[in-house]
């Protein structure tokens, strides 16, 4: 296989808060090949958004990238190593801020956020903002940029693009604003688009329109995507490969069909069983017990063991890495010691069932602090 377009290697992001260090992203690795749509899925608090903002070095204080390496198209977006004094530092290979801003952001990698209202400036017209972006990033004259902006608006399905060019963001509906952001992301024909829950705030029919649009544009431009979502339905519809995140770690990594039909991690299984289905009536939902623990104080051993129906004694001590466990032609990795690849003492270990059965009590002791 050719070299990946984007390679994230052992990325660690921590937030230094008054209460302690939050390990929001704790050593995740994944890659994205050309023309691929890779999903990053998990519940809120799993660290998905932090992980993708690290790719563009957009992590805000008190957050900091404290380890790992992100490579994009042969360039090192960031490489952080720990010095002899224990402090992390950026290595020489990391490209400087100015260069990242001028050459990479917007031109090579674009990002689409969940809330389109926050990404558009309310006091400038939609067309003006799009035009300025094209003008700056593609060195076109104002008139050419304007023409390009109108045709981009048409491309993403804005009705009457010439007339709407002069409208302000508040005059657009949520779905149309999201289309404008997609137009903006596409305007420079980047090779990678990072989409952070771009359809979560939208209605289903609008979401469907946007997903169609993305698939169509992907066919035409061959753009790669990193798609952050919590919706397994969206994952099934558009992703080629999927990374499932739980509490700052990737617990399973697989092609989309394998993820749904050859599920290897208990968390993924639980997530799939807890969603109500639109295409069939499910009498009783099978929710995951409890709530996700806080990243400031993750459980020892496997982070999922407090909620895992298959947890055993051994899970409380070993925190498994994400290893190859599949037998298909494409890699399928999972971080669960029940698989043979781990050669752990899972089978001989007594089950932890009792704790998981307590349901809400677990959530109360795990998720909340006592008075």
């Amino acid at each position, binding site marked *: 296989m050719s070299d990946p377009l984007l390679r994230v290697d052992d990325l660690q992001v921590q937030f230094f808060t008054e209460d302690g260090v939050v390990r929001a992203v704790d050593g995740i690795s994944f890659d994205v090949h050309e023309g691929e749509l890779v999903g990053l899925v998990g519940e809120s608090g799993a660290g998905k958004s932090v992980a993708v903002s690290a790719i563009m070095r957009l992590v805000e204080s008190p957050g900091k990238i404290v380890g790992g390496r992100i490579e994009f198209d042969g360039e090192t977006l960031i490489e952080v190593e720990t010095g002899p004094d224990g402090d992390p530092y950026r290595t020489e290979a990391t490209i400087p801020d100015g260069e990242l801003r001028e050459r990479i952001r917007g031109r090579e990698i674009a990002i689409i956020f969940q809330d389109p209202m926050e990404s558009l400036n309310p006091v400038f017209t939609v067309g003006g903002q799009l035009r300025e972006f094209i003008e700056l990033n593609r060195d076109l004259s104002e008139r050419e940029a304007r023409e390009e902006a109108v045709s981009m608006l048409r491309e993403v399905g804005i009705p009457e693009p010439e007339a709407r060019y002069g409208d302000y963001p508040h005059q657009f509906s949520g779905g149309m604003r999201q289309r404008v952001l997609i137009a903006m992301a596409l305007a420079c024909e980047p090779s990678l688009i990072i989409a952070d829950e771009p359809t979560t705030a939208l209605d*289903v029919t609008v979401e469907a329109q946007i997903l169609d649009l993305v698939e169509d544009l992907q066919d035409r431009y061959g753009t790669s995507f990193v798609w952050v979502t919590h919706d397994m339905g969206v994952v099934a*519809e558009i992703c080629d490969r999927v990374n499932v995140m739980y509490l700052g770690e990737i617990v399973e990594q697989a092609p989309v069909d394998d993820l749904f039909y050859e599920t290897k991690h208990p968390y993924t299984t639980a997530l799939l069983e807890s969603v*109500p289905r639109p295409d069939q009536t499910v009498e009783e*939902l099978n*929710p995951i017990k409890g*709530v996700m623990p806080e990243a400031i104080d993750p459980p020892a051993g496997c982070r999922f063991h407090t909620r895992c129906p298959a947890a055993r004694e051994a899970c409380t001590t070993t925190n498994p890495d994400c290893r190859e466990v599949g037998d298909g032609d494409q890699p399928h990795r999972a971080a669960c010691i029940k698989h043979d690849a781990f050669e752990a003492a899972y089978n001989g270990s007594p089950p932890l069932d009792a704790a998981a059965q307590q349901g809400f009590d677990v959530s*109360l002791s795990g998720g909340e*602090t006592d008075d």
Partner: protein
Amino acid sequence: MTERAAAATEGVDSVGFGDPLVEIQNVSKYFPTDEGLFSWLSVNRDADGLPVETGREWVKAVEDVSFTIRKGETLGLVGESGCGKSTLARTILRLLEPTEGSIYFKGRDLADLSGEKLRNTRKDVQMIFQDPQSSLDPRMKVGKIVEEPMQAHGLLDAEGRAARAQELLEKVGLDPQHYNRYPHAFSGGQRQRINLARALSVNPDFVVCDEPVSALDVSIQAQVLNTMRDLQEEFGLTYLFIAHDLSVIRHISDRVAVMYLGQLVELADKRELFENPSHPYTQALLDSIPVPDPRADGRRGVLEGDVPSPIQPPSGCRFRTRCPKLIAPAEYDLSDEAWDRVRAFMRHVKRRDFTETDPEAVRRRYFDGHVPGGSAGDVVSAAIDDIAADDWDDATERLQEAFAEQSVCAREEPDYEVDPEYGTDRHTAACHLHRE
């Protein structure tokens, strides 16, 4: 004496399970677009005589909605944002005054009630809101939050209320020990459970749930939904469950009502609605949901365009401007395929979806080079000539007038009953496709 009046004079819980508990009859709710003192005046410089016009613009948030909710059932109300679901819910609870129509609760017209009587009825109807964050007072302890409605309605003494609050906390799946905690110590799902406990504290018959789980993570959503179902069984509750997520609706509801732009478009038994959807809007909604199965053959994005403004909703069927099954006007003799092309052309001209103005190119793009014959073809040709002259507005108007406005969908308001394929419950669908 009518049955209803009899029930009213008795004034007791005489509603049996499966009988109508809440009846909504022709309810409409309009909001003025501007509530200022002189907002009914507007300036029109082009007018003959006085350059002033009177009259307010109204947002028709809910228009002419009728249905009944039976005791013990969960009625799911689904629709996209802005379709009037929440306004309808608030109108039913009389948190908003209906502009027109009446709402009967246990046979009594809520509009007739006021003051003390209305307050007493409020005890029987409770509401759970979407945002578990803002619906709990951050400075009140959980126990007090649950007790407050009981106190307001003068139920029990202080000790009894505390005991009941603790009992309810346990019932909704929380630890009664948490009686003295503040809301911030709880997660979103747990807060929604507190909301449930508060709503149940006054022993209501009817609970309106406005998107109660849409702010929660999927795994937590399932926990709360299961609890709501258990409570319904235990307390004999009736739910009006509002959501935009059809998967959630499919899980929790017994019957489902679908709303679009302030009106009900379809109402049927759950299975019937999901397996035999009879309104094009319901079908489009169902096709749009992403299915969590990569092997499912996805059909989506079937709807074009955006929801029209509720200030001037389309005449006849409100969905007609986006409907993929808009009926061809009877006066033209068009094949189905030709009509599909004309309809696509008409909508794309309106939205200016293409840039070609050359007549030949437009004909190729939409009609494979051959414009349909007859009077329909004449209109299309005239519109293509308008486009060639860069007169998009004329072309739009010409096409709308000749086709969209002539369709039965624009002329009559649909209201039909469909033969159910599953079960025997009434299935209504407001679509002219069912007019025979």
